[in-house]
């Protein structure tokens, strides 16, 4: 459960990226946040994962108020999330396998169980044959899928994806969309920020539209 109430986010320098946003996302929902570049989509996702704190108003995730969270509690909150960043944030000095292993190492999985989960995640995104490759040798689409594998490997309850189909051609974008749908079908809350109209229509999710930091409509979708 994610809930925003009257959230403002002002960045240092005074720019107001979000204005008076109130929004509730139920467990198991699939939500696509749309809007032009600069509308505040990324900021919205960052507030959910406690990467940014609201300037005013409250953001509550699983009953925890992000604005009041102690720094020590933040890592444990983040483990509920699978995060796909707009710029992927892959580690280029580590292999595909090691990149996906990272979240499991952080949580402290044992080696055998971790290896099993990494393979399953890589298999799901079709990168198993490239487990020993380095990310620099992957195409843009493959890097995107690697970022997805890293986000889902620890089976998070909430998946946040920022422009997940940004670099993908239509076929791969479709695969990624299917991947998100399959996660949503097993109960994972999925929040996707995108300016890709196709992705939005393909998934038939609940749509949330941002314009210049303001929520302009919240259309209840048919869902999955």
């Amino acid at each position, binding site marked *: 459960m994610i809930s925003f109430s009257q959230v403002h986010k002002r960045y240092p320098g005074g720019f107001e990226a979000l204005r008076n946003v109130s929004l509730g996302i139920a467990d198991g929902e699939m939500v696509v946040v749309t809007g032009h570049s600069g509308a505040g989509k990324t900021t919205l996702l960052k507030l959910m994962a406690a990467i940014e704190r609201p300037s005013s108003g409250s953001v509550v995730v699983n009953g925890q108020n992000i604005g009041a969270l102690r720094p020590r509690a933040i890592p444990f909150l983040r*483990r509920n999330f699978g*995060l796909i960043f707009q710029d992927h*944030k892959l*580690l280029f000095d580590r292999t595909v396998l090691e990149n996906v292993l990272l979240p499991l190492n952080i949580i402290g999985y044992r080696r055998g169980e971790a290896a099993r989960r990494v393979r399953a995640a890589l298999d799901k995104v079709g990168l198993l044959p490239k487990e020993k490759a380095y990310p620099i040798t992957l195409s843009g689409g493959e890097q995107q899928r690697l970022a997805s594998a890293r986000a889902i490997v620890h089976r998070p309850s909430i998946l946040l994806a920022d422009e997940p189909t940004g670099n993908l051609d239509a076929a791969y974008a479709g695969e990624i969309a299917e991947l998100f749908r399959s996660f949503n079908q097993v109960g994972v809350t999925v929040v996707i920020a995108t300016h890709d109209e196709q992705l939005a229509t393909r998934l038939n999710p609940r749509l949330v539209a941002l314009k210049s930091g303001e929520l302009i409509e919240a259309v209840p979708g048919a869902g999955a």
Partner: protein
Amino acid sequence: MKAWLSQHIRTLGATLAKLARAPVSTLLNVGAVGVALALPVGLYVGLASLQHLAGGLRVEPQVSLFLARDAGRGDVAQIDSRLKQHPGVRGFRHVSRERALEEIKTRSGLADVVESLGHNPLPDAFIVDASDAAPQNLEALRAEFLRWPKVAHVQLDSAWARRLDAVLRLGRLAVLTLGTLLAFALVAITFNTIRLQIMTQRDEIEVVKLIGATDPFVRRPFLYYGATLGLAGGVAAWLIVAAGICVFNDGLQELSGLYGMRFELRSMSVGDSFSLLAFSAWLGWFGAWLSVSRHLSDFEPR
């Protein structure tokens, strides 16, 4: 618990791999730490050897009374009873002229010379332990004993031992000062090494924090690196000092032989060696901890 242990083992493995990946810079770092530590440790070894030499001699405050050669048994008995009643005397021992002669005969190998004298040239003596070791007190005792009848000569045995003791105390102060300064240098070396590592691993630190790594998780590899660097530096220092002891002892044997004595540098005890390694590992860990604490705050969420 098992997961916790396996995380530590994994971190240790990664640390060793990291050290092995950059052998030249590892070697230079370890060498710098080793040399920095070897200086005070070497001085300490020299000092401990001197102390051992001094320990073989009596450092307790002693006053020797030598009676006049014409002193008879009565005079000896009188002085004996005076010493017994004296509040400044903790204990004493009478060495009769006959005993003294026997000792010279058996110990010094001068039996022939003594034999040839035909008479006993030695006086009766009392060796007195003073209850108060303060120099002015010993001087006062000396003056008092000299006024007693038939006391010919009073000697303070402790004077030179006390001088050596003062020199040793100064040496200990030098070791402490040098040790503190170079411990600071070691902390500075690890601080800077870790700072560079954090700078080159900015992306990685940022990512792991974003996906739920705790601060201890982020710190751990750097702390391990610092401690390992310190420990390896300690081992290097130990080897440098051990080699130094070997080299110096050859020369020292020759030199001290010329003075008719035997002085050599003693190798470090197991306890001292262990302390050196533990302390150097701790210093490395501490330098890394300072560096990580100082530089990881740059990654906090705003």
